[in-house]
Each structure stands twice: as C-alpha cells, then as structure tokens.
C-alpha cells in the first residue's frame, strides 16, 4: 500500500486518455437530465427491487438502500460547490444540515427547494420534510392493494445517506403519503396536493445529546 506504484498497474485508460481525475467536478453543475429517461430508469429500478421482496416494507427498504450511497456522494460533491470552495465548510448542527438538504440537495436533484421543513412537537428528535409533488412519483400510480407504498422511499434513502455521512446517525428516514384521501393534516392542502409526501427523519439519541452540548457551549 505504501510503495508508490508505476502507471502500469493494469489500469485501463479510456480511449481519450482522460481518467475521472481529469474531469472538472463542476462540469455537470448546470446540466439537466431528461425526465423521460429518469422515469424509465426509475421504473426499472422499482421492478428490479419488486422481484425479490416479500412485502411493501421490504420493497421500501430496498428502494431506500438504493438511494443511500447516492446521498453519501452528493454530500461531499455539493459541499465542494459552495460559493467559496477554499473555505470548505461542513454542517455540525442539525438545522444547517436540514437546510442543506431542503435547499442545496433538493435544488440539485429536483431544481427547486423542498416545500416545508418542520420539527415534530411530540418528539424533539423527529423532523419532517415535505414535498408537495415528488418528482420520482410523477409517473407512478400505486395499485389499491399497495396503497401503503410510496416510491419516494428512494429519496428517503438519499436523505439518510446525507445525514449518516455527515455524522448525524438516524434511526431511519421514511417516506409517507399525506395527500389526497389519507388522514391527518390540513384538508385543503391535502386536496390541492394529492401526491404530497412527508419524509420523517428520526435522529439517534446520541446526535441529540451532542446537539444539546453544542448548544450550551454557544457554538
């Protein structure tokens, strides 16, 4: 591991001689992806996951797992794309992290910020991130017998990856439909946004303890 290696170690170079290290990280900063291509790919991902599962919880778990590594990567990528890259910063408190997710991450993935961010009144370690119209669910209508399913579990996996990577361990991030005919919440909002989805983020106890200590230290 320590000895410097020559360049002839079986590494295959692309035909244009450009490795991943020769590409600029900001090259695709403003690039847009075809929505049709994404929808097609996403449908394939769901059916791939569906072939190997027993129930809806299992399926959501698999979608979550598919999104998780993406979150780990996006965390560092988006942090390097801040205004002044040389003074690179990382979030150390819960709120800046959630704002990073609701603003920076959402803008990068969906081209707009998330619709609302709330803290649970009953549980201080639980946060709720709302999206009125998740892009991933745009072309998906779940059959009645699977009404529990929300395919935004994939996005929940991305969020979990970001939180975990930044050192904010979670008990899990889950996606739930709160629009249309489901119960709870404001009735007019439910009718206006039938696909409204909430991402429940439950932080682990040790994260909350640390947060409290840092808050006392005036940090």
């Amino acid at each position, binding site marked *: *591991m*320590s000895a*410097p*290696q*020559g*360049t002839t*170690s079986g*590494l295959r170079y692309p035909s244009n001689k450009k*490795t*991943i*290290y020769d*590409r600029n*990280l900001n090259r695709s900063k403003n690039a847009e992806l075809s929505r049709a291509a994404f929808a097609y790919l996403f449908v394939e991902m769901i059916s791939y996951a569906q072939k190997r599962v027993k129930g809806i919880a299992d399926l959501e778990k698999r979608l979550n797992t598919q999104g998780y*590594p993406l979150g*780990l*990567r996006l*965390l*560092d*990528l988006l*942090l*390097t794309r801040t205004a002044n*890259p*040389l*003074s*690179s*910063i*990382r*979030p*150390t*408190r819960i*709120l*800046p992290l959630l704002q990073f997710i609701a603003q920076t991450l959402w803008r990068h993935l969906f081209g707009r910020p998330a619709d609302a961010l709330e803290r649970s009144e009953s549980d201080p370690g639980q946060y709720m991130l709302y999206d009125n119209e998740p892009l991933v669910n745009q072309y998906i209508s779940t059959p009645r017998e699977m009404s529990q399913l929300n395919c935004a579990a994939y996005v929940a996996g991305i969020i979990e990856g970001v939180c975990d*990577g*930044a*050192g904010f361990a979670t008990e899990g991030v889950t996606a739930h439909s709160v629009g249309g005919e489901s119960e709870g919440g404001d009735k007019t909002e439910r009718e206006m946004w039938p696909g409204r989805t909430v991402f429940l983020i439950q932080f682990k106890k040790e994260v909350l303890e*640390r947060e409290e200590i*840092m808050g006392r*230290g*005036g*940090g």
Partner: protein
Amino acid sequence: MSYYFCIIGTKDNPLFEHEFGTSRSGGDGVSRFSQSDRSLNPFIIHSSLDIVEEVQWGPSSTSGSAPMYLKHIDKYAHNYISCWITGGNVKFLLLTRPSDAALPGAVGGGAGGVRGSLAGGRGGMLQGTYNPTSPATEEAVKNFFFDVYDAWVKTIMNPFYGLDDRVTSPVFRQRVATAAKKYL
C-alpha cells in the same frame, strides 16, 4: 522535512498512505524517515484520531457550520499532525517531521547552503524552529489538502468505489504527489 500523509475512513481504517519529502528550499521530494520512524508513523497518526473527534465537533460559527480544515491538531515528539475532515467524515492526516540540522546528508553539500539562505522566508521553517501554526505553513498545508480533497471527491463519485474502500488508483497517488510537490 519529511511528510507522511494518510487518509482514514469513517471506521478509523486507513484507506491510503503516501510518504514524501519537501520540495521547497532545494529539497528533492524524498522523505528521510528511518526504518523505525516508518513503523511508528501509523501509530502516531492513529493516536491523533481521538483529538480529531474532539476538535471536529468543537465550537463552530454561529451558522452551525465548521471548516473542514482543522489545522494543526497534535504533536508527538518532533512530529506535527495537521488534519482536514471531509463532509463525509473521512480524515486526511498529514504528519510533518521537520529536518533537524543534525540529520546528516539531508540535502547535498551545495544545496545545503541554498536551503540555509532561503529558510527564513519559507513559512517559518528556520532550522530547528519549525512552527506548525505559522500562517505560511498553515496556508501551504491547506492548499495541499484542498487539492487532495478535489481528487478525493472525484474518487468517491466513482460508482465502483464503495464507502471505506482502499484507494488504489495510481492516478490518485500521482495527484497527491503533484500537490505535495507544489505546496510542501
């Protein structure tokens, strides 16, 4: 001056290591660690991980964010350790071993004189009085870390790279060496 650079993963496992010497002030870029130093370096690096964990959640700015560059964090005998922590909780640790004047043959006879005349202007690297917190040294190390971080992000964007895998790419090693030559 000899350097030992190491990347530590999220589970305190080493992912990459590289050893080099200074290229400043007539240095030839070759490290001068003795065989016993070589065996000791990983231990020194690992012992400083405790300090990293203390510092990383230390006082942050009012906005609730902290810099990735933690600066000089630890010292063991004549070894100074600087740290950069990425957003994904991966640590870059750089161990600096200033060349003591007693080290024979650090640089060739002729170059030795050149080094002496330049030493004052090189980030407080006056022989025997290396100061890890001088602004010039901090800046140089920061620039080095930043270049490595750029290459690091490119590495983790590779879909075939998993969390806490070892980095084996010779191109990455070359990037680190280039950054080292440029700034240290």
